[in-house]
C-alpha cells in the first residue's frame, strides 16, 4: 500500500495525498467485501444445518419451519447476502443465530480477553526474540547460533496443546509458580469492575494491586507460551535481516573507522534491520489477535478463538462473519500501522511520502 514509487516530487503534495487516501479506502473496502463474500459462501456450503443448532434434535417440523424462516434461510442466497451487507454498513452485525445476543456485544466481551493475552505475548516474544536474533547473527555458525536455532525449531514444531498442558503440570500443579486456567481467581472475579475488559489494565487503574497480581499470575503462562512461538519466528527473521545488514559496506566502513562493535550491531545494523522487522512483529501480533483456539481451550480462556470455533461448528454465521470482519480489520489496521512506522524509521520512505 505504501510502496508506490511513482512519486518523486513531480506533482504537488496535497492531491497526491488525497489520491493515496482514496486508493487506500478502495483497497480496504474491497478487502472487506472479498472477506465477507468468501466467509458467507463458506458458511453456506458447510454441510451443517444452522436450524438444527438452534432448535436441537427433537423439535417438531412446525418449529423447524418457523425458525428456518426466522433466520431468513428461505430467501435466495444473494438476497440473504445483500440484507446482511446493508445491516453491516449501518454498523449492525446482527444477532447470534443461537443465543440471539447481539454479535457486537459478544465480541466486545470475548475480544479483550484475546487482546490482553496477545499483547502480553507479543511483548514477551519481541523483547526476547530480537536480542536472540541479533546474538545468533553475530555468532553465526557458532554455538549461540545453534542454540537459538534449536529453541526456534522447538517453537515451531511442538504442538501448543501439549506444551500448554505440560506447562500447567510443571508451573501450576507441581511448582505452584503460576495460577491455573482461567483469567482470574473467583475471589477477585467481582472486585474488578470491567471498563476496558483488559483485566490487567482495569485492576491497575482501580488501584487493586492484589487483583492485578492475581490476573498476572493467570496470564503469564499462556502468554509466555504464545510469546515463545512468536519469539521463535521473530528471532529467526531478526537473524536473517541482521546477517543481511552486517554484510553491507557501511558496516565495513564503520569498522574501518573504528566504531565500537556494539555500536555497529545495536545502532547501525539493527536500525536498518528494524524496518522490515516491524512488519514481522505486526503480523505476528495480528496472528495472535485472531485467538488461538487450542491455547484458549487448554487454559479455559474465554477468547475470540473459542468463540469463533464454537460459532463455526454450530454454523452460527452472523457470529462467524462478525469475527471475520474484526480479524480483517485487525490485519488491515496493523498493516497500516507498520507502514506508518516505516516512514518514521526509514528516511527514504519518509522523503517520498
Amino acid at each position, binding site marked *: 500500500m505504501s510502496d508506490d514509487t511513482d512519486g518523486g516530487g513531480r506533482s504537488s503534495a496535497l492531491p497526491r495525498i488525497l489520491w493515496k487516501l482514496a486508493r487506500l479506502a478502495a483497497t480496504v473496502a474491497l478487502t472487506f467485501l472479498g472477506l465477507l463474500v468468501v466467509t458467507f459462501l463458506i458458511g453456506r456450503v*458447510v*454441510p*451443517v*444445518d444452522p436450524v*438444527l*443448532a*438452534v*432448535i*436441537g*434434535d*427433537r*423439535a*417438531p*417440523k*412446525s*418449529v423447524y419451519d*418457523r425458525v428456518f424462516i426466522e433466520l431468513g434461510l428461505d430467501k435466495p442466497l444473494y438476497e440473504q447476502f445483500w440484507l446482511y451487507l446493508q445491516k453491516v454498513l449501518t454498523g449492525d452485525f446482527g444477532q447470534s443465530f*443461537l*443465543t*440471539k*445476543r447481539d454479535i457486537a456485544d*459478544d465480541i466486545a*466481551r*470475548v475480544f479483550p480477553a484475546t487482546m490482553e493475552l496477545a499483547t502480553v505475548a507479543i511483548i514477551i516474544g519481541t523483547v526476547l526474540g530480537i536480542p536472540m536474533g541479533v546474538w545468533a547473527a553475530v555468532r553465526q555458525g557458532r554455538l549461540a547460533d545453534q542454540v537459538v536455532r534449536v529453541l526456534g525449531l522447538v517453537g515451531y514444531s511442538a504442538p501448543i496443546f501439549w506444551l500448554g*498442558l505440560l506447562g*500447567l*503440570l510443571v508451573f*501450576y*500443579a*507441581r*511448582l*505452584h*509458580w*503460576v*495460577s*491455573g*486456567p*482461567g483469567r482470574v*481467581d*473467583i*475471589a477477585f472475579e467481582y472486585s474488578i469492575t470491567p471498563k476496558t475488559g483488559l483485566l490487567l489494565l482495569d485492576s491497575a487503574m482501580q488501584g487493586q494491586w*492484589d487483583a492485578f*497480581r*492475581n490476573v*498476572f*499470575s493467570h496470564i*503469564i503462562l499462556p502468554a509466555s507460551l504464545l510469546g515463545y512461538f512468536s519469539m521463535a519466528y521473530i528471532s529467526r527473521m531478526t537473524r536473517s535481516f541482521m546477517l543481511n545488514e552486517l554484510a553491507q559496506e557501511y558496516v565495513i566502513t564503520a569498522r574501518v573507522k573504528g566504531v565500537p562493535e556494539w555500536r555497529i550491531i545495536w545502532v547501525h545494523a539493527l536500525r536498518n534491520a528494524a524496518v522490515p522487522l516491524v512488519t514481522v512483529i505486526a503480523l505476528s501480533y495480528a496472528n495472535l489477535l485472531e485467538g488461538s483456539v487450542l491455547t484458549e*481451550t*487448554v*487454559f*479455559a480462556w*474465554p477468547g475470540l478463538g*473459542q*468463540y469463533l470455533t*464454537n460459532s463455526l*461448528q*454450530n*454454523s452460527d454465521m452472523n457470529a462467524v462473519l462478525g469475527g471475520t470482519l474484526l480479524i480483517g480489520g485487525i490485519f488491515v489496521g496493523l498493516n497500516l500501522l507498520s507502514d506508518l512506522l516505516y516512514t518514521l524509521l526509514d528516511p527514504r520512505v519518509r522523503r517520498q511520502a
Partner: protein
Amino acid sequence: MLHSRTLLAATVAVFALLGAPGAKAETPADTLIQAWAIDDIISLDPAEIFEFTASEIAGNSYEGLIGYDPADVSKIYGKIAESWEVAPDGLSISFKIRDGRTFASGNPITAEDVVFSLTRAVKLDKSPAFILTQFGLNAENVDDMVVQTGPDTVQFKMDKPYAPTLVLYCLTATVGFVVDKKLVMEHEANGDFGYEWLKTNYAGSGPFTIREWRANEAVVMERNPNYSGDAAPMARVIYRHIPEGATQRLLLEQGDIDIARSLGAEEIDAVRSNSDIKIQEGPKGSIYYLGLNQKNENLAKPQVRQAMKYLVDYQAIADTIMKGKVMVHQAFLPRGFLGALEETPFSLDVAKAKELLAEAGVPDGFSVTMDTRNTPEITGIAQAIQQTMAQAGIQMELIPGDGQQTLTKYRARNHDIYIGRWGPDYQDPHTNADTFARNPDNGDDAASKPLAWRNAWDIPDMTKLADAAVLESDPEKRAQMYIDIQREHQQTSPFVIMFQEIEVSAMRSNVNGFIVGPSFNDNNYAHVTK
C-alpha cells in the same frame, strides 16, 4: 521428582519476585465451584431450555408442579402443587396449588402463575414445547385447555385419556417449570411473554437464583433468600467453562474447583487413586446405539441387522474404552424407567454372525460407512466396532465429523450407519418408545423425524402397539406392553443398542450431598455441604 526442600525455597523466592499469591487458594467455604463444558447453553428460559447444562441449572433454580424421587422415579410428589386428581374420564387432571410459597422476587406463587407458565410455553412453541402439545394442546386452544378453576386450583385438559403417569412425568420436565408471571410480564416486549428478557434472566422459585450467565465462561448462581424450603448450605454455586478434561483434572487436584463434571474416561481412571478426590456415579437415561439405515440394501436384510448385533464387543468397550462411564444395555428403555427390559442377549459372537451373513446372501461381508462424531469416546467406540465387524468381513469405513454435521446428515437419511447417543426428554417410557419404536409416516417429507424414521424403518404395527401403551392407565399392564415391544424391537430393529450412560463426577473428598439424578434437571446441589 521435583519436591525437594531447596526447590521449596526457590519457589518462595520466585513468588516474592513475581508477586504471585502466597498459598494455593482453596475454594471459598460457602461457594461450590464446578468445571463443566457449558457451551451448550443457548437460553435460560424454561420454555426453551433443552440442553444438558441449562436443564441442570433450571432444575436447581426453578420448580415445577410436581417432582419425583431421583432414587426411585415411581415416587411422585407435589412441589408447587399440594395434590392432584385425575378426572374419572381421564381427560383432565386438577392440581391444587400449595399455599404460602413465594418466588425469589417475593411474589406469591399462585394458580395464575401456573396457568401462565404452561400456556406461555405452548404459545412460544420452542423446541421442548412438544412435551406439552402432545396432549392435544396448541397455541389456539391452550387458553381453554389449561384453566384456573378456583382461587388455588388449575385444570389441565387433554384430547385423549393418556396414562396419568405420562402426563405427570411430562410436567416434571423443564418446560413445565413455573415462572413468576408478574416479574416476567414487566419485561414483555411486542407480545413475547418476556421471552427476550428471560433468555438471559431469572424468574423462578428454586433453592438458587441465576445471577449471571457469561456464554462460554461461567454461570453464577446464588442462594435464593426467599426460598420456601430449607435454605441451601452453599451461598454460591459457580459453573466454570473448562472444555478440556485434562485441565479439569489439574484444577481438581489442586483444589481450585470442587467438582469436575466432564472428565474423560482416562482422567477418571487417573484420579480414582487420589485420596483427596472421590468419584460419584449415577446412571443417566442416555443410550448409545448404532442406527442402520434401511435404505442401504445390505443393512435392510433382517439377518444382517441381527448379525451386526453379534459383532460388537460390548463388555470390552464398556470396560476398556469407557472405563465405567457406561454399562452394557440392549433395550431402548434405560434402566430405572417403567417397563425397562434389562436382558442383554447379545455379545461378541463372530461365528454366529458369519452364519447369519451367509443366510442373508453376503457370506463374505460387504463395505459400509459409519458417520462418527469426532469426540474421543465416540471415536474410540467406533474404532473398536470397526475392528470386530472386520472379523466377519464387514469393511466399515469411519467418516469423522463434527456433531452438527453428522446430525444434519443423519436427519437427511444420507448415512449408512450412525453411531448415536439418545437421551430421554422426560421420565416416562413413551419418550423413547416414541422415537425408537414409532414411525407414523416413513415418507421423505414426514412431519416428525423419530429415530425409526431416520433409519427408514417402516413399522406400522409396532407404531400401533406404542400408541396403545400411551393410553393404558394401569401401570402394570402398561409396563408389560413396553416389555413386549422391547423384546421384539431388540431382535428385529435396525438399532444396535449397546450402552446406558453412567454420569461420573469427580469431586474433592469434602464435598457431600451432591445428587446425580437420572436426567440432568434431577442433578441437585441444594443440600451440598463442604
